């Protein structure tokens, strides 16, 4: 019995001691020294932090031009291109005639015919006048003057002298020449008009902003009758609402995919401020964007329309700033990190945080470049504790021992033998 009692007493005493110890160690503001077991640490490094939006995109032509055709007023004649044709800027696509132009042309042509008819009449008259003149010169008394001439002259032939008649005829001839000249001018003008109409009506010339490929032709003349896509490629994708807050036009992009040998560079060219689908509460709204690809000099890879790419949009970049892995930052109350000091302590340091991306955190204030930072801040139960680290055998190299003085070697060996 006494043995059992002893065991019970010892057990109870032990449990009490252990419980008290645990309480004293774990209580807030404990005086008990701690030794932090540090497995992972890192130096504050000068680093470049790039904040990106990771998303997906699809290769599509930069632009699509649609060509419309007004069937009401125009008569379609024929297409001059086929689907899949490459078209240069300014090449002809199809021909049509316009009814309005035809009416105009008919008018103009009628005018021209009338004017030409008048010219013929004037020529006839001038010949008669010349004949009368000649007759008067040869034999003034017996001259027979054409009726039409007689009627046109201002004087009475029967009473007037032949000289007067002659001078009158002369004047009439000048008058008629002038008339004929002006009619000729008119015909020239009409010709010019008509020929310009001809030119217009024979084919419509489409000048596209860029070279392209005929993507679609509507043979049934439904609009758009021709769609042309540019040969320049862009990347299209969607931003989430969250990403929209960061993304801006002009940001650099990098696109990569398994098909591409090199990653593509470019810039965001356009972001739609209105979602692709009607905005709704239930759905995450997505905002389309387009990124333009920068040509890579001579060796631009031919891009397949519709191929998927992984896209990184660089929203922010800071180069050469002190950075630490984000897991080193502890956010309880105020953000802080633990520095492993040259005196062998784990010390709390408050930090001012800058850019955070790629698992790195920029330090605006806090430990400086080269300081050693603990990577598991949750382990630190008490500020200003000692710390120990386990051995990483793979980093033990015999060559390293050349750097130690023999005194150092003995010191560390003794430390292992003697120090507890």
């Amino acid at each position, binding site marked *: 019995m006494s043995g059992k009692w002893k065991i019970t007493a*010892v057990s109870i005493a*032990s449990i009490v*001691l*252990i419980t*008290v*110890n*645990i309480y*004293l*160690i774990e209580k807030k503001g404990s*005086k*008990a*020294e*701690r*030794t*932090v*077991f*540090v497995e992972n*640490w890192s130096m504050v490094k000068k680093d470049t932090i790039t904040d990106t939006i990771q998303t997906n995109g699809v290769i599509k032509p930069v632009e699509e031009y649609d060509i419309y055709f007004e069937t009401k007023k125009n008569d379609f004649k024929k297409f001059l291109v086929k689907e899949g044709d490459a078209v240069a800027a300014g090449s002809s696509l199809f021909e049509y005639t316009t009814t309005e132009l035809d009416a105009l042309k008919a008018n103009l042509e009628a005018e021209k015919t009338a004017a030409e008819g008048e010219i013929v009449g004037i020529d006839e008259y001038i010949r008669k006048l010349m004949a009368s003149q000649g007759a008067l010169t040869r034999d003034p008394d017996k001259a027979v003057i054409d009726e039409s001439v007689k009627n046109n002259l201002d004087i009475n032939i029967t009473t007037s002298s032949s000289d007067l008649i002659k001078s009158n005829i002369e004047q009439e001839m000048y008058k008629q020449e002038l008339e004929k000249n002006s009619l000729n001018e008119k015909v020239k003008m009409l010709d010019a008009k008509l020929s310009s109409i001809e030119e217009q009506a024979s084919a419509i010339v489409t000048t596209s902003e860029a070279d392209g490929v005929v993507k679609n032709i509507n043979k049934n003349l439904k609009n758009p009758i021709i769609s042309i896509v540019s040969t320049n490629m862009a990347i299209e994708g969607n931003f989430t609402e969250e990403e929209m807050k960061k993304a801006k036009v002009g940001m650099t992009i990098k696109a990569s995919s398994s098909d591409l040998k090199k990653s593509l560079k470019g810039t965001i060219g356009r972001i739609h401020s209105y979602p692709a689908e009607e905005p709704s509460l239930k759905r995450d709204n997505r905002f389309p964007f387009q990124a333009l690809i920068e040509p890579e000099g001579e060796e631009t890879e031919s891009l397949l329309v519709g191929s998927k790419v992984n896209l990184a949009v660089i929203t922010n970049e800071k180069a050469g700033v002190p950075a630490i892995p984000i897991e080193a930052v502890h956010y309880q109350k105020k953000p802080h990190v633990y520095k*492993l*000091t*040259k*005196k*062998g302590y784990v010390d709390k340091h408050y930090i001012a945080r800058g850019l955070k991306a790629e698992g790195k955190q920029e330090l605006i204030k806090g430990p400086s470049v080269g*300081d*050693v930072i603990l990577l598991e801040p949750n*382990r*630190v*139960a008490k500020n200003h*504790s*000692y*710390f*120990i*680290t*386990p*051995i*990483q*055998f793979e*980093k*033990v*190299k015999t060559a*390293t*021992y050349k*750097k*130690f003085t023999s*005194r*150092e*070697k*003995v*010191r*560390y*060996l*003794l*430390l*292992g*033998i*003697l*120090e*507890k």
Partner: protein
Amino acid sequence: MVYQVRLLKGILEPHRSRYQLQNAEAVTRLGWKLLFLYFLSIIVFAIGGYFGIGSESFSKEITKMSVNEFEAGKFLILSGNIIASLIYPSIYIFLSALFFWIVTDIPYIKLVIVQMIIFGLQLLEKALLIPLFVLMDIGNDSNLFSLGVIGQYFLRSDYFIHFFSEITIFQFLIIALQYFYLKEFSQRNNYLVLVMIVLFYLATWFVKAFLAYIQVGVFV
């Protein structure tokens, strides 16, 4: 009657093994058990060294050394730990047996066997402390089984804090077990035996506290 050295039985069945050892005329398997103890000691010390237990004073080098140098330094400490794992049992078994042989009338070989049994307990304590220290982020001074934690609340002196942290539940068990064996083997007054044992352990605590207190860098 031939006594077979059985360390575990010595701890778990003390009455029986005490009786056997009391009446032993010859001892077998002593060498094997000694080798086994040394082997265990190397293992436990090496594991402790691997985790860096007791290397607090070296940790500050992390800011001055390259990663490879730092690890090479720790490897030297581990080597030191392994050397210690051979020295420590030798002192504990043979030297302390010598001390008890001087102050009592017990045959040396029996004392060695008792010390071996007890050294098994010492190793067990050390082995238990490794995961405890690593998982709880505590050092030797804040050993859960010791008076060190309470000591830190009442004492200013680092040396005495180290001293109290050496006084653990295990040490009491060890003293009890040692007393249990030695009082039976010895013809002398039980209290004298107990005083000797307690004195011996006080001395070991003082030495250990001293070892924790000194910085090797002072000498070398």
